[in-house]
Each structure stands twice: as C-alpha cells, then as structure tokens.
C-alpha cells in the first residue's frame, strides 16, 4: 500500500490536506494530515466519500453519445472527437468561433484549468463567461474598502474575544473553523451568530440574531450608528487609517435602533446588545458567509458589515479581522479575483464576447450575430446551479450541439449530445491554493485514469490534433499528454518562488510565500487613498452605487409586493454537498436520501401543513414538489430548500430563482427570491 499527501480541490473554504491510501490501483482509505494547521484533525464526509467516488459504479468511464431515445451509447474517443471537431470546424467557418460558448465553473480547482481557455484561444476564440455564481460581490466590496482580499490565518480565531458569524455556518461549510471557534470559546470568547436559521454553528453561541433575509446591511448600519453615537469606536484607528468617516457617520444618523428593528425585524435589545459587545469586547473577528452577498444589494451589504470591523479598529491585529476571503495562497494567478470575473475591458479579439454567469439562460437566448450554436461545459453543472433553470434549459435545448465533460450523469450531462469522461482529483497532478487557509498544496496523480478517462489537457490536445494543428503549434498552448509533462509545467511554476520546493510539496503543504499571518498587520491598504475607504469614489465610478455603504432594499417582484409570494426562499449549503457535487454517492445518500424543505411551525400551521407532508414551492418562474420538515427556530417567513439537489433527485432551488447580477463584482443575486408554498394534492406522508 502506498500513502500519498494530497489536498481536496473542491470549491470549499477548508481545502483540507489529507493522506490517501492507494492499494492495487484503488483508493482504499484516508488519513488526516497534520501538516496543515488549518485542517489538522480530519476531513469531512465529502472528503471521505472519495473512497467511493474514485471508483463509483456511476462514474462515466467512456465517451458517450446521445441516441435517438434520449439515452447514451458508448462511443470511441476517435468517434467522439471526430464529431466534435467537425462541428467546431463547421461552426467556425459558417458562423464564426463566437457561435461556441465555453462554460467552465468551480467543480475542481487547480492550475491545469487554465489550459482550457488556452485551447479556445488557440482555435480562434469562443464566447466566454464573465462573472461568477459565488462570491465576487463581497470580494469587490472588500477590494474597494481594504484594497485586498485577505484575512488572518484560520487558527488566529483562537485569539478572538468576540466572534461574529454573520450568515456563515462553518459547522457545515467550513468544519475546521469550528475547532478554532471552540478554542476561543473555551478561553471565554463570546460568539454571536446572525442568521435567519438556527444553524449548527449557532448552537454554542451566546446570541442568535435572526434578521429578515436581505436586510443585513440595515442591521450593520444600525449597529454602526449606535457605535458612533455612543462613542464605542476606535477614534485613533479611524483617524489614522480610515477615509470617509465623517461622511459615513452623517449618512447613517437616521438608522436609530427602532428604525433598524423595523427594517430587520430584530428586537431593539439585541441590536443594542450587539453594538455594546462590538464596542467593548476586543479583539473581534467578524466572519461573514457568502449567502448574504448573493442579493442584489450584496456588495453594499458586505461594505456595511465591514464598517463594524473598521469602526471598532478590528483590522490587522491578532484575533481581529474581517474573515471573508483569504486569497494569499493564490500566488500563481496572473489576474486576481475578483478582477478575473470582469469581462475583458479591452477585448481580446479572440474572446471579444462574453455573457453573464448570473443571466446565463436569457443571455444565451439573446445572443445575435452570431447566435450561439454550441456549448462546451466543463467542471460545472449550469442546468442545476445557474439561476432560472427553466430558462437555462430552454437555452440549452435551442443549441445545435452540446458537449459536457463530466464524471457523472448530472442534469447538465443529460442535456449533452456528447459526454466526455472527466478525470477525478487523483488522476492528474495539480497545484491548488485555498481561499481560507494560507497553503499552497500539491495534489499528485495517484491513480491511472479509470476506464478510458482522459484529463481535460489531453482531451484538448487530441481535439487540437483532430482540428489539424501541428504538435509544435499545440505545444505553445497546451502540455503534451502524460502526467510527467504536467509535473514539468508545474515545477516551472513553482520555481518562480524560491521559498517553495516542488518535491517538498509532495510531503507537506507549504505556507504561501509572502503570506501575512495577521492580514493588514502593516496597516497598508491598497486603495486609491491608501486608507481604508468607507467612502469609495471607485464604488460610484465602477458600479454606480453610493460612495458610502448603504442599505438598499432587495428586489421584490411585483407579485411578491402584492403578497402573492410572501415567503423568502433560502437555499443554503449543507455538510453533505459542495454545490451539486457528492449527493449522488451512497456514502452521502445514507444521510441525505431525498430533498426536503424546512419551514417554521407557524408558517406551516397557517397553511395547514404538517411535518413530513409533500408541499409545492412555487412562484412565477417555476415550482417544485418536496417533503417538508417543520422547525421551531427558523425565522417565520423563510422557506429553506437546500442548494445542490439535482432535477433528477426532485428539483433544484434554481427552478425558482431569477438571473440577476449583484450590485457589484458581477456576482449572482439568487437570493432576491420570493415564493409561496401549499400542500400538494394527495400530499400525504410518503
């Protein structure tokens, strides 16, 4: 048996290091990796499920082609690539390369992903995507305010005396963070959680504050106003390092606790309590989640939350930070997030057209000259995960040709004309960073690809060959087949940093060169004024929002205003999935066999619904039927239906969401979403 050090490449805070046991070409077990101080104890159930996932009988092992009855037949690589290359050639000649949409998402991270874009550049371009489904509104908000997206090392939370989890549920989405929170609590730290739900992360909290979804900015501003009114602020810090304090203070005077309470539905005493704590308990770490910024007011919301850390001087000190995203390990990126999500400002002639991630369905349908004819999807499941599933499906079905590179028959793969089998994390060497911990990690190839699986780099290489490119030409863009060529390329990348040693990375993760353990400890802020910008001219110029953080009400559809859809849909993540991944595995299915909604006991009673019955969740965009669970602590007026369920499994929450962009950063405002629920006819327990 061989044991390898590796790291989990999923779109997840933790980015755990772990050790994988390989025996006779199979992953057989997993061990914790103490070399990563952020994830020393063990990996979550999704990570453990790799033992199944690597060899799952559901995995796609051969190229598949859709047959007339809608099923898939196995075809050879030659046949599949022949058909795809002919299609590309035909479309390029007749409609131009921009009739092809290249869509990639966050399914697996790694430097090798960059080669995909290179391929499309090599063949003359394609329509690409701008924006992101996840977090750019918040990234942009922080970029505008602090100049950089970084926070203290994860384990530094242990030093905090006040911890605020604002819309974040690390117990399910960043489990190791709970280690450090618990350590801080064991030393007497106070924990406040802000969330309309009562999550696992709030169980050991001192205080749970449950605002109306989408009103977080008002809550933050109301508290900020109290801090200023009461003088519970770090005046010295503000004077030295903050730009725009006076303007901000003046702009929020109207947010009395009473008014704040009216907007947020949080009792005045809790607003006052929270303000008092922030004003008096130092150091404070404020850890916001990513859900709040997926509203149309998302960027302004994160800017508003930031003011609490700034006014109380909780930046750049041990135990004190705004714990949103830590991009310090992304040392290999040429364009940093969130800028990498912007459409090309000076269009590259080859990628002169890009469409919105948030509005994928409508944008695809609206493209003219040329119309979209083909889509290539990799590392993503847009049918399930982009807003407004019905429109996305319509747009997909309007195309002439769809290629999906996948490990499993997802909802998106089901729409494909050709499915190409995708590698898993053990089948190609790569290097990954983390947006939470400060490590650069090597993820070696430990298995030969299963069946006829080929890594994307090889798929592109073969496709380029089929398209008639000479090897010498291809080499300028892509690595040659074989993992040794990937290793060589990565070795070159690593060489750019003398602090890193490629071979040592095989044993242990390495702290990224230049990492600031205490972010902003130098109190240098990469903003136009060189200070923390409460007032940001850039915010106005780039995004057309107020220069100051403001509370903007979220968008209510007209029908919601008329009370036709009075409930707010929340679609949070659970411990069982990373977006739409993992839920199909038996390991996960034993804990989450079917989707369900959660509603408050009072919302249920008002509609004659009881626990375990089938309900319909609906609005003017779509509907889904699901079992319901009654809960006695969730905020009344909220319906929870968890993110990531497939249409095949009962329906994605995106059947109900609308494709809108966030106020900044080209994020996706899934969460301005109102619905109604009703008992499904014949909705008995079943």
């Amino acid at each position, binding site marked *: 048996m061989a044991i390898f050090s590796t790291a989990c490449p999923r779109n997840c805070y933790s980015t755990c290091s772990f050790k994988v046991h390989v025996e006779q070409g199979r992953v057989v077990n997993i061990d914790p990796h103490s070399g990563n101080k952020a994830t020393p104890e063990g990996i979550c159930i999704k990570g*453990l499920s790799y033992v199944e996932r690597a060899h799952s009988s559901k995995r796609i092992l051969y190229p598949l082609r859709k047959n007339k009855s809608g099923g898939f037949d196995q075809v050879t690589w030659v046949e599949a690539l022949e058909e795809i290359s002919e299609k590309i050639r035909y479309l390029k000649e007749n409609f131009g390369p921009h009739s092809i949409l290249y869509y990639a998402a966050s399914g697996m991270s790694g430097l090798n992903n960059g080669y995909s874009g290179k391929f499309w550049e090599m063949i003359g371009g394609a329509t690409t995507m701008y924006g992101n489904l996840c977090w750019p509104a918040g990234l942009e908000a922080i970029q505008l305010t602090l100049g950089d997206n970084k926070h203290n090392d994860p384990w530094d939370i242990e030093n905090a005396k006040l911890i605020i989890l604002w819309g974040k549920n690390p117990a399910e989405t960043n*489990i*190791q963070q709970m280690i450090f929170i618990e350590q801080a609590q064991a030393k007497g730290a106070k924990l406040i959680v802000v969330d309309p739900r*009562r999550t696992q992360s709030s169980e050991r*909290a001192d205080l*749970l504050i449950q605002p109306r979804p989408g009103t977080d900015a008002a809550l933050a501003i109301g508290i900020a106003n109290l801090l200023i009114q009461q003088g519970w602020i770090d005046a010295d810090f503000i004077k030295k390092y903050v730009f725009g304090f006076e303007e901000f203070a003046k702009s929020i005077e109207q947010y009395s606790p009473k008014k704040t309470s009216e907007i947020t539905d949080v*009792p005045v005493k809790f607003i006052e309590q929270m303000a008092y704590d922030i004003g008096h308990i130092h150091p404070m770490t404020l850890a916001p989640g990513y859900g709040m910024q997926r509203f149309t007011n998302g960027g302004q919301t994160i800017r508003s939350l930031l003011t609490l850390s700034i006014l109380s001087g909780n930046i750049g000190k041990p135990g004190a930070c705004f714990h949103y995203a830590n991009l310090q390990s992304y040392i290999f990126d040429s364009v940093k997030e969130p800028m990498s999500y912007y459409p090309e400002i000076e269009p590259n002639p080859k990628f002169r057209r890009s469409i919105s991630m948030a509005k994928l369905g409508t944008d695809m349908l609206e493209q003219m000259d040329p119309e979209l004819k083909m889509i290539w999807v990799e590392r993503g499941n847009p049918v399930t995960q982009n807003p407004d599933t019905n429109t996305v499906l319509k747009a997909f079905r309007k195309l002439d040709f769809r290629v999906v590179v996948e490990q499993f028959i997802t909802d998106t793969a089901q729409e494909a004309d050709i499915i190409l089998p995708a590698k898993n994390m053990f089948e190609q060497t790569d290097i990954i960073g983390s947006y939470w911990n400060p490590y650069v990690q090597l993820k070696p190839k430990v298995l030969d690809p299963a069946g006829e699986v080929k890594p994307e780099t090889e798929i592109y290489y073969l496709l380029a060959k089929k398209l008639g490119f000479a090897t010498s030409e291809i080499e300028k863009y892509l690595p040659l087949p074989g993992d040794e060529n990937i290793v060589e390329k990565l070795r070159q990348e690593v060489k750019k940093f003398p602090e890193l040693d490629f071979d040592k990375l095989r044993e242990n993760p390495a702290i990224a060169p230049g990492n600031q353990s205490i972010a902003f400890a130098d109190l240098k802020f990469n903003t136009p004024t060189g200070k923390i910008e409460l007032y940001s001219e850039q915010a106005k110029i780039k995004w057309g929002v107020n220069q100051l953080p403001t509370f903007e009400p979220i968008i209510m559809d007209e029908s919601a205003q008329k009370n036709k859809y009075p409930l707010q849909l929340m679609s949070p993540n659970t411990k069982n999935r990373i977006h739409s991944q993992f839920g199909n595995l038996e390991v996960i299915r034993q804990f989450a066999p079917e989707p369900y909604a959660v509603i408050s006991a009072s919302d249920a*009673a008002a509609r004659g619904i009881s626990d375990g019955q089938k309900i319909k969740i609906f609005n003017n965009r779509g509907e889904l039927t699901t079992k319901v669970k009654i*809960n006695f602590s969730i905020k009344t007026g909220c319906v929870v239906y968890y993110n990531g369920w497939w249409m095949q499994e009962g329906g994605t929450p995106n059947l109900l969401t609308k494709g809108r962009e966030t106020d900044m950063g080209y994020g996706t405002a899934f969460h301005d979403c109102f619905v109604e629920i009703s008992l499904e006819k014949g909705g008995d327990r079943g």
Partner: protein
Amino acid sequence: MDKGFFFDLNKCVGCHACVVACEIENGREQHQPWRAISTFNAFQHPDLPVFHYSLACNHCEDAPCAHNCPAVAFIREEGIQTIKHLADKCIGCKYCTWACPYDAPKFIDTTGVVEKCTLCQHRLEENKKPACANLCPTGALDFREIEIKEQSRIAGFTEIGVTPRIEVMELRQKKGPEMAKDISKEEIKTYKSLSSKTASKITLKREWVLVLFTLIVAFLNGYFVAGMFEYKEFSPWLFGGLGVLSLGLSSVHLGKKLKAWRAVLNIRNSWLSREILFYSLFLSTGMLWFFLPQTNYLGYAVILFGYAAAWSVDKVYLVLIPKTRIGWHSSSIFLSSLLVMSLFGVDHLITAIILGIKFLLYTYRKIYFQMHAYPINYWLSIPRIIFGFIVPVLLFPNYYEPTPLNFMIFIGIGELMDRIEFYLEADIITPKKQIELDLLQKLENITS
C-alpha cells in the same frame, strides 16, 4: 488509567465523519453502520440546546451484551480490553440488541448474526486510534486515557450501571443561544408529538411468535400440574405437541437455528439461557414423568422446572424500559402459569386472587400511563378489561362447581390481549430513546 473514547459535546457538530470513517475502515455496506449520531432537540425548541452524541460500542466494564448473551458469543479481550463479538458463536437471537443501551450490536439479516464495533482492534494493535476517532474533523471524538467511572447523568446519555469505557465532556453552556423566537402553546403540542416518535426496537409485528411462545409456557405449566394431580386427564400428545411447537416458534427468529443448542451456555448470567434450559428440562422431564412410572418426586421436579422457566421468562424482559414503578406486569407469565393451574385445578379461590392481582396491576398500569401521557390503546384495553375481568366476574362459578369452559375462554382471551399489549408497550433504551425521554423531561421542566 485505561484507554477509551473521549467525547466532547462542545465540539461535535454532527458531521457524520466518524460514521463514514468506520464504514471505510471496516469495509462494510452502508445498511447498518456500527456508529450513529443521535441529536437532542432535532426540531429546535428555542429554549433548549441542540447537541449530538456519536456512539458505537462503549466496550463497557460490565457489558450487558456479554452478560445477557445466552450463547457466550461476547468475550472480553485481554490487554486492550475490548468486548469482542464472535460471529461463529452467535446464534442470532438478537437478545444483545435489546440488552445494550447504546444500540451497539446490530443484527444483520443477510448473515443471521450480530456484528458491532471492534474498537478497530487491528488498528489499536498498531498503536493507532480507532478510525472514527482518527478522522473526527473537530476533535470531538478521541481515543485516549480516560477515567472509567460511572457517568453522572448527562442529558441524553444512558448509564445503567454498566460502566461504559467513554468519558463524556459536558456542554459548557447548557442552553441554546439566546434568541427572539417564541413558541406558542399550540406549537408546543406539535413539538412534543414530533419529538416523541422514536420507534421502539421491539414491535409486535416482529415478536408475535413470542406472544404465543410465552402463553404456551404458562398454559403447559398449569396443564402439567392439573394432570399430575389428576384434575384433568394428561395428554402427552398435547403436552409434547405444544412443547415442540413452542420450541419451534422460539427458534423461528434465530438467525442461526442450527446453533440453537448454544442458547443454554450462559446459565451463570443470562436469564435467556435459564429460560431455555428450564423450559427444555420442564418439557423433557414432563414427558419422562408420563412414560416412566409416574413418581411424585419426578413430578415435583417437573413443576419446579416449569415455574423456574416461567419466572425466567419474566426476567428475560428485565432489559425493557420499566414503564411503571412496579416491577410486576399484569401479563407476567409466572402469574399466568398460576392462573392456568388454578383454572385446571378447579381452585376458584386462587383464580380469584390471581385475577384480582392481575386486575390491580393492569388498572394501575393504565392509570399510570394516563397520568404520564403515555399512549393507551383503548381498542385493546377496553376489551381486555371486559373479556378478561368483567365477564369472568359475571360468570364466576360457585365454590364447588367445575370451571365452566366459557369462563376459561374469556380469561384466555384477556390473557392473550394483555400479552399482545405487553409487546406493543415494550421498549428498550437506545441512545435515541434516551434522548427522547430526557428531552420530554426537560420540556416539562421549562413549561411548568
């Protein structure tokens, strides 16, 4: 100091990694995981905390599985002191799954035997922690030197004097988070009913053969005494036939019928072994008594075995959750044996006394249930009282009259119903059940 599990309620977030780690390590299907998470206050009453227990086998000092197993299929390993289950010794009687308050032994239909957590002995031998403790992402579950002692009662955790090898770290904060959410009176009712739905591990549907088996034990006891003292003609065919039938019934639920003989190996500790031994002796000596010259000495021995068997039957059910404060149940097989004996033996005074005792026990139990808001099945209870008590009183024979047949039939119907109710009401402690009981208790405290 000994090694054992250390579990910190403050750190566990219910992530299930321990369950999966166990499944991977021990190469098992996912149908019956050895380790399970149980959640306190899953429906989130605003005034109560939510917390989780991750439990498998606690390899108790005084392990109730080993104590009660009739086939001596559990042994304590030397050295590391794990409680080891020996599959080749197991007869698949499932009695350990009743006896263990941690729900550790799992009966596997496909193999016909029980299996359970081994404490990853193969890992311990290599100086590694069990897989569950090795891979707990928050460090809530550990394996290390602990102080093995009787736990003070922590909400949701059972300690019935078996000294589990686990140390539980209590919650620092005994309440959930302070929050603005209120719960109305109407909602408390819903909350209560949703929170008290833990299915009993013992169901009539699965155990109906035991209704017949235990009633036959009582019947044959009375029948033999009546036959021996010549109140009734003794038919060896009826006695032997019912005896064989009852033994057959009792082995129906054995996973390994061919190993049934092992069931008598734990006479020293297990009431189940005693029951089977005494009952077998009762049946065999009973037949001997008929075919040999019918000596009274042998006859007395048969009676002794019979009542010892009936006594043991009652004791087998000591592992159930006591539902009232009195240890005696109205459907006690010992009492029923006496009742049958008195009926066949035409001793109306004893019949009256036993019926009286049974009536008192029965009504006491029902009133106790009523007072504690336990469910009462009126479809069974009312007929049980009418047929089993009221009608017999109306039909009660005069002192010198022989026992009327219809009188006996009605009493028999009452007994059958009572025994059915016994299995319907039967429940055993599991982690989930303990949580439910403690939750309802806490709820009473905060609402009163």
